[in-house]
């Protein structure tokens, strides 16, 4: 009883393979245009892939590889989709919106409304039952949308950034609600938020350019990210290269020549194998002149951006970031285009297998 999908959509450059356990929630992270929503649409049956297979429990969702092509239409899949916007049917009452799934499955009007009341109570929205969706706030409407999706008793719940259209007051409430209802359910959640991933998901996958670039247990991925995107979310600098005896050798990239990064080797890091070096922006100091004295790393970089970050200034130089005090920034006279040295102690750099 598991979910497995293997799909190629050439027009959108998507090629992924993914499995979910019986009661597993997986968060999908990745930059815009990575193919996250397309993956959900393929699972829901709204986009037809060029090739691939998918199974949900005992049901074949599609099989486009074999001789006899199988395609199960969306309404027979048992995959409910919850989008950024609640998309409650504007002409139906809140109660009938939630009753829509059971009613479509063949339940009587009374039975489906009974089910709807149960789920509305579950999401704390029973008092809105008689209202029209137009009379709800964004947060209320999204809670009702959660109830509507659950009332359809889906075997797989697909959530496409369910919190992104909500304001900062409504989001925490919905996040707590989702944490409660997703436990013990199978779900795929697209999110841009580390907090969502940590709270809701057992596992995360990171997608980029239509491929899965990183996959693992949520805490582990953020503790030791292997993709630039996950590192960005986790708030660490990441350099990719080949593990050496005392650090990592990186190939030349856009902003930097090939380098040797001195760092602390993790147990599993094998010299000669692929690896990553990670260090937090707070461990980086900025100098105008080359600093000497080992064991330190000194990267000659061009400042690309300055932005406030808490009570610090985050100085970005391509993919690397440093957090310094506003005073230090003023003294250095930093501005985009400045040539500076990012200096980080070797002891602050973690090198692990990538």
């Amino acid at each position, binding site marked *: 009883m598991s979910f497995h999908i293997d799909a190629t959509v050439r027009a959108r450059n998507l090629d992924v393979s993914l499995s979910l356990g019986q009661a597993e929630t997986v968060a999908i992270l990745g930059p815009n245009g990575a193919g996250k929503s397309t993956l959900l649409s393929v699972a*829901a*049956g*709204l986009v037809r892939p060029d090739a691939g297979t998918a199974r949900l429990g005992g049901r074949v969702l599609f099989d486009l590889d074999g001789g006899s092509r199988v395609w199960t*239409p*969306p*309404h*027979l*899949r*048992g*995959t*409910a*989709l919850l*989008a950024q*916007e*609640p*998309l*409650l*049917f*504007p*002409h*139906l009452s809140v109660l009938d919106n939630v009753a*829509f*799934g059971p009613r*479509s*499955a063949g339940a009587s009007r009374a039975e489906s409304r009974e089910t709807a009341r149960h789920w509305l109570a579950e999401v704390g929205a029973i008092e809105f039952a008689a209202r*029209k*969706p*137009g*009379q*709800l*706030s*964004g*947060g209320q*409407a999204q809670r009702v949308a959660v109830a*509507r*999706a659950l009332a*359809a008793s*889906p075997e797989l719940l*697909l959530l496409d950034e369910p919190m992104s*259209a*909500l*304001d900062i*007051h*409504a989001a925490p409430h919905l996040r707590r609600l989702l944490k409660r209802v997703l436990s013990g359910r199978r779900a795929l959640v697209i999110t841009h938020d580390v907090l969502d991933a940590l709270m809701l998901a057992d596992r995360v996958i990171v997608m980029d350019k239509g491929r899965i670039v990183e996959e693992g247990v949520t805490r582990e991925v953020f503790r030791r990210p292997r993709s630039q995107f996950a590192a960005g979310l986790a708030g660490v600098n990441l350099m990719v290269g080949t593990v050496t005896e005392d650090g990592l050798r990186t190939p030349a990239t856009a902003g930097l020549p090939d380098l040797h990064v001195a760092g602390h080797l993790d147990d599993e890091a094998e010299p000669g194998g692929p690896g990553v070096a990670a260090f937090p922006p707070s461990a980086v100091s900025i100098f105008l002149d080359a600093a000497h004295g080992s064991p330190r790393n000194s990267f000659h970089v061009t400042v690309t951006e300055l932005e406030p970050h808490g009570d610090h200034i985050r100085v970005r130089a391509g993919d690397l970031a440093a957090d310094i005090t506003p005073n230090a920034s003023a003294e250095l006279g930093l501005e985009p285009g400045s040539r500076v040295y990012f200096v980080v102690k070797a002891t602050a750099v973690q090198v692990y297998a990538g």
Partner: protein
Amino acid sequence: MNFSGIPRWVYWLAVVAGLFVLLPLAAMVAKVNWAQFIPLVTSDSSLTALGLSLRTSAASTALCLVLGIPLALVLARRPFRGQRLLRAFVLLPLVLPPVVGGIALLYTFGRQGLLGKSLELAGIQIAFSTTAVVLAQTFVALPFLVVSLEGALRTAGNRYEAVAATLGARPTTVLRRVTVPMVLPGLASGTVLSFARCLGEFGATLTFAGSLQGVTRTLPLEIYLQRETDADAAVALSLVLVAVAVAVVGLSYRRPHRAEIPAEAAA
């Protein structure tokens, strides 16, 4: 006053446009022989024509709905090869002189027509019957329904339908419970426009159905005929037609049940 950004001379031209529509109507009303109005509009021939007009227009509008809703759905929801061409042809009756439409129908359903010959063998005669009136009206009115409904369908988008499908609703259920209710305002105004167009149909009806009292002589045909012999009757009947048209359009623009747009972004 709020800033409108419209130059003053535009207002003057707009006033001229308004007068251009209203003045002829006023001139006609001024010409009505009120003393004779009731007898004129309740004469046998008038009532027969009005009854026929209302009955055929209702039947044609129903036919427009039965044929037009599927056509609009296909045009709006499913891109296919030749779709633009099909849309162009569907819209053709909008710009075609109705007489030409009538001739085309005659060569399709007439005794010597494309389908007419076979229908004749089966014992069915369409030309110069009440059925012909309905066909002529449907032919000219169908584009009004299709255009309004297709626009409404495109504006509504298919995201709600996608959600409904993932909730387990069969395509027919989605159509009945989501698609149609969501485009109801567009469907209603399309229906009203079609009905009004049916009511006013003249050229195609005359060409394809003729002008037989009680069978094919609808109100516009009756007015045209009366104009030759009894101008007062023609004016009185015209006023009746204007009144019916105003009532129909007025009903459609009231729209008491506008679909509420959910406050998606609001807190």
